[in-house]
C-alpha cells in the first residue's frame, strides 16, 4: 500500500530536519538504487521551505545592522529597480539555488550579497575574471590603509 501524500509530507519534514552543514566528507555519489523517493525528495528539495520542521526554543534576539548589510540591501533593490532581475529571481537564486549547506551556514545578508555578485556574472554584465580582479583590487586597497 503506497504512502498517502500527508504521510509523505510528514516523513519529508522529519528527514530534512537531519540535513545540516557538515565539514566532514559525506558518502560520495551513492548508487541510484540506494536513493529511495524520500531521499530523492530530500536532496532535490527547495532549501527555503522550512515550515513545520522541528527545531528547539532559542533566545529571540535583535541585531544591529552592519553598514555593508544596508548597502547590500540597497544594491539588490537597485538591481531590481533598474531591471537586472526581479525580486522573485533574486529569491530563487538566493534562497534555493545557493544550496542546502550555504543556506543554513551563511549569514542572512551574506546570501543576498553572494547572489548579487552571481547575477552580474550569470547575465554577462561582468566576466568572472572582472569580478575576481575587482575583489582583489578592493582587498589590496584596504590592506594598504
Amino acid at each position: 500500500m503506497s504512502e498517502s501524500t500527508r504521510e509523505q509530507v510528514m516523513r519529508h519534514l522529519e528527514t530534512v530536519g537531519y540535513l545540516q552543514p557538515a565539514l566532514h566528507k559525506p558518502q560520495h555519489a551513492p548508487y541510484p538504487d540506494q536513493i529511495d523517493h524520500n531521499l530523492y525528495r530530500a536532496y532535490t528539495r527547495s532549501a527555503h521551505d522550512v515550515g513545520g520542521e522541528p527545531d528547539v526554543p532559542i533566545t529571540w534576539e535583535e541585531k544591529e545592522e552592519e553598514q555593508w548589510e544596508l548597502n547590500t540591501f540597497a544594491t539588490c533593490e537597485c538591481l531590481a529597480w533598474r531591471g537586472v532581475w526581479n525580486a522573485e529571481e533574486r529569491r530563487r537564486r538566493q534562497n534555493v539555488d545557493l544550496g542546502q549547506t550555504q543556506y543554513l551556514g551563511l549569514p542572512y545578508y551574506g546570501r543576498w550579497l553572494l547572489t548579487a555578485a552571481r547575477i552580474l556574472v550569470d547575465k554577462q554584465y561582468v566576466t568572472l575574471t572582472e569580478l575576481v580582479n575587482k575583489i582583489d583590487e578592493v582587498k589590496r586597497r584596504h590592506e594598504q590603509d
Partner: protein
Amino acid sequence: MAEGHTHPAAPMVDEVSDFEVLEMAVRELAIEKGLFSADDHRRWTEYVHTLGPLPAARLVAKAWLDAEFKKLAVRDGVKASLEVGVDWINGPPTGFGTPSDYCNLRVLEDTPTVKHVVVCTLCSCYPRPILGQSPEWYRTPNYRRRLVRWPRQVLAEFGLQLDPGVEIRVADSNQKTRYIVLPVRPDGTEGWSEDQLAEIVTRDCLIGVAVPKPGITANATRPVHPAVHPVHHEH
C-alpha cells in the same frame, strides 16, 4: 574606556571582512557597468532610512477610532495606507512599488475570538514600506520553522498566552501579499487621542507576537547582537 560607557569594545585591528570587500566590489562593478548609478544607491538608502513602524501604528489607531476606516483598512490595505502617508506604488523611488515588497498590503483584523500572527516560512517577506525593516528573529529559520506548527509555544516564548477557545490564525506570507495585524483595542484607552493610541501599537504588536497595553510603548527587551561596523546615521 570612559566610565559608564556601555558600547562593546571594538576589535583591536579594524579589519575589513570578506563580506565588506565583496559588497564594495559588487557595488563598484554594478555602477561602472551602468547597471545602476551611485545616485540610485544613495536614494534607495535614504528611502530605507525613512521607513519604520509609525505609519502602521497610526493606521491601527485610526481604525480603532473610526469604524468606517477600519472597514476600508480590511477591504483595501493599499488605499488605507495612503491616509497614513504611505503610497505603496508611487512612494518608493521606482514608481512601481519596492521590488521586494510589492503593492498588496492586507490588514488582518483581530477580534476577541481571532488572533493573527505573521511569518514568512520561505524567506522573511515583510511590509517594509509601512513597518520598516524586519527584526532579526523574524528572519531566523527557527521562527520560520516553528511558528506555523507550534504557534502557541512560540507565542508563549514572546510572552503571549491566549485562551484555548481563541482561534490563533498564522498568516504565512509566501507570495506577494504583505500583512500587518490590527490588534483588538485594549481596555483602559477610553477617550485616548490618535497619538496616544498609536504609541502603544509597537512593531511586535503589528507582527502579532505582542498585544497592545496601556503604558507599554516599546517592544519587549531582548538581547541585541552588536554590529562590528554599524550603519552610519547622519540624521
